[in-house]
């Protein structure tokens, strides 16, 4: 068990103490690197979002103020894409964390061939999105796809359903593909976190008469909770910006049922060549992501405070 140094820790700032500048040294390389490769584009995105700019000519743009935003916010398709994005994100987060957690717990227990099993579970994540989109599109095919054949075989539907073509089925189909692709990510990260659960605590809980699920809640969950919270945030943010699978499988169709913010953004930027409007979509997405992140920080600070850490 760790005893953190008290808040006025031995590394508190003093003139002679490297703790004043050492953290800066630690974060400096990353900061510089990211300033160049991420923040500069980020700032530029803000700038672009108040201009009218063509992709083919980003150098010359005209300032249009909030026009881009105004147009977006009155656009019913944009509203739809917001709705789709929220549904998509929520299902991705809940589903992939649940599946990842289950898989991680299963693979954490020792059994023969565990190493191989752990590697096999990463397969979906390792598969290139292009390949995943191809194979799933094929599996969703109304005539020859496995899903249709299975549901025909089971007698659910006589004729085949083209999942990607059916407005009510397209989003679930995309979600299944996405979940398949990303649950190994949660699984791998949670599996790593599970290794930090002290075996003696498990033993203590078992001795105290806890059943399996209670052991999980009393010992395992508290240890991995910070990781799961972090995962929630990461998957949320990533789901907000996931592009390839959706683009390759539906391009946002049918009838905009899978038209997420990023698909919308991409279309505006690369099909309509309207970089300014695309940037505005990006900024709105960013605002959503920032809100989620702020909630995350708030929650994690609060739990840290509640358990007396720092």
């Amino acid at each position, binding site marked *: 068990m760790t005893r953190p140094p008290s808040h006025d820790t031995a590394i508190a700032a003093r003139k002679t103490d490297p703790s004043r500048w050492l953290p800066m040294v630690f974060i400096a390389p990353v900061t510089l690197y990211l300033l160049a490769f991420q923040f500069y584009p980020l700032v530029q995105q803000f700038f672009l979002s108040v201009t009218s700019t*063509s*992709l*083919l*000519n*980003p*150098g010359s743009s005209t300032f249009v103020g909030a026009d881009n935003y105004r147009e977006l916010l009155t656009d019913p398709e944009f509203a739809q894409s917001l709705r789709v994005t929220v549904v998509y994100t929520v299902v991705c987060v809940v589903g992939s964390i649940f599946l990842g957690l289950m898989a991680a717990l299963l693979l954490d227990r020792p059994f023969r061939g565990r190493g191989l099993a752990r590697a096999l579970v990463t397969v979906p994540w390792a598969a290139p999105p292009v390949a995943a989109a191809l194979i799933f*599109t*094929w599996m969703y*095919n*109304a*005539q020859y796809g496995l899903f249709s054949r299975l549901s025909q075989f089971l007698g659910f539907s006589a004729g085949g359903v*083209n999942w*990607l*073509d*059916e*407005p009510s089925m397209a989003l679930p189909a995309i979600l299944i593909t996405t979940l398949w692709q990303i649950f190994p990510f949660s699984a791998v990260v949670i599996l790593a976190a599970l290794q930090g659960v002290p075996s003696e605590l498990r033993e203590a809980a078992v001795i105290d008469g806890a059943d399996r699920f209670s052991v999980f809640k009393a010992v395992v969950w508290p240890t991995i909770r910070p990781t799961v919270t972090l995962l929630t945030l990461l998957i949320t943010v990533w789901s907000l910006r996931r592009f390839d699978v959706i683009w*390759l*499988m*539906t*391009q*946002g*169709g*049918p*009838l*905009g049922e899978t038209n997420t913010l990023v698909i919308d953004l*991409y*279309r505006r*930027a*690369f*099909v*309509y*060549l309207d*970089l300014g409007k695309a940037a505005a979509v990006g900024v709105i997405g960013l605002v959503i992501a920032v809100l989620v992140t702020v909630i995350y920080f708030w929650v994690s600070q609060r739990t840290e405070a509640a358990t007396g850490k720092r």
Partner: protein
Amino acid sequence: QSGKTVVTFAASHFAEVGRGDRLKAWVEKFNAANPDIEVKPVTIPFSSFASTIFTQLGGKGGPDLIRFDLPEFYAAAASNSVLPWDGVINDADYKFTSADKYLKINGKRYGVAFDTANYAMIYNAALLPDGKPPKTFDEFLTAAKAATKDGNYGFAYRATMAERGGAWYDVTNFVYGFGGRWSKPDGTPTFNSPEVVAGIAAYKQVYDAGITPKGTDAATYRRMFWEGKIATVVDNGGVATILTSQGKAHPISAAHSPFPHREQGMILAPITINANTKVKDAAAKFLRWMLEPKNQQELQTLLGAVNVATIVERTPEELKAMPWLKAYDEQTPYSVPALPQGLEVKSPEIQQIVVQQLLKVLQGGVAPQVAMDEAQRLVQTRVLGQ
């Protein structure tokens, strides 16, 4: 090596399995003949060709020579991302095909056709009653219905957002075939004109007739055709070339599309010079080499059932190997670019709107007239800002 001027040349063909290699070999001939210049093919997958090139153009880079599709060509030309061909060639020296007129904007040439392709109906005679191609739309429907059995389908086309670009060409063929045009030559949109609505309605009729493998993408249904499971498709010469090589549907046949009017869309892919190029002269040299009759001849042969910039007669061997070429070549006078005339620069947004409305007709049960009225309205307000 070091003294060579490198000219990069991007075309989505280069990524294709069969034609790509032949095309590269053709380019090599130029390199062999010009020791001081090296034309380097740049492979960019078709699916991201436009976005990649545009990003590079916007970043003041990109390949020196670019084979665009028509919509991208207009966008690039409109933003001066490609150079006008002043002094590159002398128009009078060449016998251009009729499609060449679409490549001049305000009288200035921005490219020449690298390849053009017409649309016609490819059919598998074995699946059609008495092996004859239908001539009228009604005949077509009857024949296709009759062919739809035992896991075979009478017809196939695209009807998903995921293939927005392809669906646009398919629906354009229907609209043109029913006498419609997307716009008047002056750029006035006519999306809800009776002829266009009739084309859309026909599209829907086919959809509802249950004669197509719904939702199956083009790559798959073309393969199905090849496997002898599809009776007819309306597709361009390039596709026909690919389908002809072997497969169960071999030999294929072609006839003009079974629509009331002969007009169909066309593929028109110009080659252009990047405005950011630093080797314009070397690029021009390659272009002139390309337009030499011998090289045009070779290019047309290696690309298959397409035409190139200049008029090149088919050789007897070609016609013998591919008798259906005739149907395609006969289509040339009736080929119209698939873009709304006068609105070419806006075509991506227009395509999006139209295909979206089309899908509403097909899947959402919206009446063709209502949907196209909406399309007209959206184009006018959102795209043209009227």
